[in-house]
């Protein structure tokens, strides 16, 4: 494997600034991490990740944003919070993973794990339209977007037969109000992205304390 040399001075003050931003959004202090690796060691998914969770924390600390946001790690993290529970420095690693996923999506980074992102999208589409998750619709939507038509077909059919999957979505009475939540959040996020692009100060108060 060819080893590239990372020029850290080229990152400059943007490095710590990125770590501070991630920390603020995740409600934790990214600088607290002392790279002990306890998070990676306990992470049930780390074997499949391209960077270990500890290494993601390192990328964040150094401000290597592209590497962090293009990693498969942030998508493979299953949010089990084993890392957060055991971190000796009380870093909220699971929340950092959430922050990085949200950031990657809103800033249009290509997804390293397309299928995972597609699943989340399909799932939320169902919720946004009917107010509740609609497994069958979600699975179909997901399959259409990933072209994984025949994967998992056995289990799906069994579940249909066992009556575990409903043919029609449950639509709640207040589904409009749920759709409204999605709308408002989308708008707020667009404003936030625009603000960041123009470098205006954060409208972020209240977002910290994510723990």
């Amino acid at each position, binding site marked *: 494997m060819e080893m590239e040399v990372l020029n850290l001075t080229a990152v400059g003050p943007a490095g710590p600034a990125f770590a501070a931003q991630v920390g603020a959004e995740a409600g934790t202090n990214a600088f607290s991490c002392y790279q002990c690796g*306890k998070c990676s060691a306990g992470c049930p998914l780390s074997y499949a990740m391209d960077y270990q969770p500890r290494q993601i924390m390192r990328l964040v600390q150094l401000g290597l944003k592209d590497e962090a946001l293009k990693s498969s790690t942030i998508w493979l993290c299953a949010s089990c919070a084993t890392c957060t529970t055991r971190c000796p420095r009380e870093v909220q690693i699971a929340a950092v993973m959430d922050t990085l996923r949200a950031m990657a999506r809103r800033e249009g980074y290509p997804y390293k794990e397309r299928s995972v992102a597609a699943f989340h999208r399909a799932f939320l589409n169902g919720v946004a339209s009917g107010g509740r998750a609609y497994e069958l619709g979600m699975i179909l939507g997901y399959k259409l977007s990933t072209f994984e038509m025949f994967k998992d077909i056995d289990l799906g059919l069994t579940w249909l037969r066992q009556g575990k999957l409903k043919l029609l979505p449950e639509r709640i009475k207040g589904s409009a109000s749920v759709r409204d939540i999605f709308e408002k959040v989308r708008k707020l996020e667009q404003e936030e992205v625009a603000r960041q692009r123009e470098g205006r100060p954060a409208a972020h108060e209240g977002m910290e304390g994510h723990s």
Partner: protein
Amino acid sequence: MRRVGVFVCWCGSNIAGTVDIEQVKAAAAKMPNVAYVEDNKYTCSEPGQAAIQKAIKEQKLDRVVVAACSPRMHENTFRRTVGGAGLNPYLLEIANIREHCSWVHPDKVAGTRKAVDLVRRAVYKVAKNVPLQRASIDVTKRALIIGGGIAGIQAALDIADAGQPVVVVEKTPSIGGHMAQLDKTFPTLDCSACILTPKMVDAAQNQNITLMTWSEVEKVDGYIGNFTVTIRKKARHVDTTKCTGCGICWSKCPAKVSSEFDLGIGKRKAIYVPFPQAIPNKPVIDEKNCIFFKTGKCKACQMFCPTGSISFDQKDELVEEKFGAIIVATGYEQWDPSPYGEYGYGRYKDVITGLEFERLVNASGPTEGKIKRPSDGKLPKDVVIIQCVGSRDEAKGIPYCSKTCCMYSAKHAILLEEKIHAHSYVFYMDVRTPGKGYEEFYKRATEEHHATYIRGRVSRVYQKGDKLVCLGEDTLLGKKVEVEADLVILASAMVHQNGASKLAQTLGISYDQNEFYTEAHAKLRPVETNTAGIFLAGACQGPKDIPETVAQAGAAASKVISLLSKPKLETEPLVAQVNEAICSGCLWCKPICPYKAIDGKVVKERIAGGKTIERPVAAVNASLCQGCGACTVACRTGAMNVLGFTNEHILAEVDALCL
């Protein structure tokens, strides 16, 4: 008019770099009462001090202001300087223009302005200073040492060697402390008992040393030179003057309980000495577990004792003793790692602490030095050692590094390989070996004994068959690793002694957030406390190993020796004083004083008409008062003042800064 001399120090570039000395001098020259101004590169140096003395004489100065570093650094130095020139030492004020000014203000203009303010404050105050005299008090020529670990033993031997009597109070049945539990000691691997036992015997035989084991300090009154201490001698139920330590009693005792000294790995009896080399080698009866105390039947020990030493009706005894100085040497405890659910301490028998391992590997321990793992007695082949357990883990409440565990973990790895050819996997975050011969010791563990060091914290330990699987990340490779171990040793943190804060309150000394006792100055007064006459030695002040403990014990002993060898002690005159004429006798000040220096007394006074009345007023014991000033704030009539810091002084300072 006073004649105040102002001496502005450069402190090299420490002050002159950010404070314009010329401007400070010019401003000072215009302040009221100032008769003379001079600057100096280093005022504390010999020429600097000589310049002050010369100016006092030539310029006929009657007050001095030194604008330099913190009074904590050099106030005493400059008091001696002005004293040497014939002035009363308390006619001096320090303006701290270094720590309070140049070091914290990068802006030269603002810094200079502040320096001028600080000098003006000192000039105004010094004008109000009056000569104060030190008093002298007698010294009880006897020292108390609390705690009989290696720190206490060493300090006792040193003080006794200087010909002064010393009493060691130890709460367990024997002196020796944790060092008695250790097997070999790093970095030389000499046997702990071989170097400790002779010292214990020396302490027992020394004419100047009195050992009071199975005893605790209950109450401390008095002050430097004159402490009155109440000591509880717990009922031993064995007459130590008759007992020969033959051991028949404990061989006959039917009550078996787990041994504290062996950390539960071994057993002891209800009548016991904690270990064979104990000093004194005389047993105690543990009332909680003794069958006679529980049921009223047994007395086997008494029946078999050939010297008739055993008595069941002995009671705790309180004795009061006087001391001139106290050394606190109460040591540490190894932290109980049960809060690490992920490591399964307490759940899996073969997960043990470092101290438990010391007992396992110790030739005089419960397994006679055979490293049998607790679950099934097998000799382990693969051993995982986890460093920094508890230490450096804020989530578990211990932020600091315990300083000794890197070294004792290397020691354990070496011993395991040497004794049973077991392979150690040491999970570490940093290896910290900054002592003489320490790095070399660590090198030996890897190069000669082939311990595998893995940089990473273990996340979880779980049982799989008869193995303990340890999951970690080799952070240098960025790969998850797992080791199937036969034994897991947790290098658990060194934490404060149980009840450390309670003893601190009894003694009136301070402790930090981790309940280690605080030294008077982190760098310059490492073995003194903020309470005069009380000193610190060993791990009660913070985690440390034996060499450091012994060095500190020697230092504390030398402080005590010098204190006790003075015929009289001079006291600081900067203490509280009551103006009895206006004191209303309300005694609000009394409970506020942290040093218990204030009491009430009754004065007789003649009032108009020639009648004599009696009236209560506050009275300050000048030897106890530390001049903290809490009482002056509580006093509603303004009768209470700290000399050198009277209300008048403070108002003058406020005027100087605000008017």
